[in-house]
């Protein structure tokens, strides 16, 4: 790459951080919602 390499790397790194954070937060929320619902269903079934 040429003299613009820092700009290219910054753009790719910023994208990885933003999309990585979105995916991580989505997976965490999905796990929490699934466990929460399973717990409620178990309690209701008692």
């Amino acid at each position, binding site marked *: 790459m040429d003299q613009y390499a820092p700009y290219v790397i910054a*753009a*790719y790194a910023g994208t990885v951080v933003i999309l990585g*954070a979105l995916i991580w937060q989505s997976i965490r929320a999905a796990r929490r919602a699934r466990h929460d619902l399973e717990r409620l269903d178990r309690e209701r079934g008692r």
Partner: protein
Amino acid sequence: MSIWRYANPAEFMRITQSVMVPLWVLSGALIAFGLGWALFFTPPDYQQGSTVKILFIHVPAAMLAINTYALMALASVIGLVRRHHVSFLVAKAAAPIGAAFTAVAIITGAVWGQPMWGTWWVWDARLTAVLIMFFFYLGYMALWAAIEEPDKAADLSAVLCLVGVVFAFLSRYAVRFWNTLHQDSSLSVEAGQRIDDAFRTPLYICMAAFYVLFIAILLLRARTEIRQRRAHSIRLQGVVA
């Protein structure tokens, strides 16, 4: 067979369950292949140098930023007219994804603009419309979070989403209405080929990668919203009983 059966939460959960893993695998493979090709195997542009590599992220992110808002608006209209909860929840699930892609588009655009335009930001019609659309994404999410009653939150957020449609439209077409610094679309059906094949093929792969990733995250978040909604209903039943 009616498409409205997919608006049934149980049916939605059953159908989406089987596609989740293939979607994640496909999006991972396409991102690795597309961005790997863009970053390591595309030549520098004769004018832009290696900053052209930023456009393999910027263009798909900007397309998704606008199209996600259009999807939210469509889902909001369906929700308001047909009172399908899944429509509202799909719009709600799409908002953080659209906001993230809008942020990526703005940041990568600024990082490209500094060496090419000589500035990180200008109050150009398209850039300003995209920034306002980003604020509508944030406002939409804040409104959902601020109202405790889900049906009321869904209705008011849908109305707010529809108000913001004008900025999604301007984000797409501002370059045609006004003579702005931001260039017209790189890909155009009407204007024919505007970019060289060396860039066009990896760009298409990156676009496909971002779209598949978008669908994977959207379905994951929509499933989460449906589960949260069901948990909320169970808790309410417990309080009433």
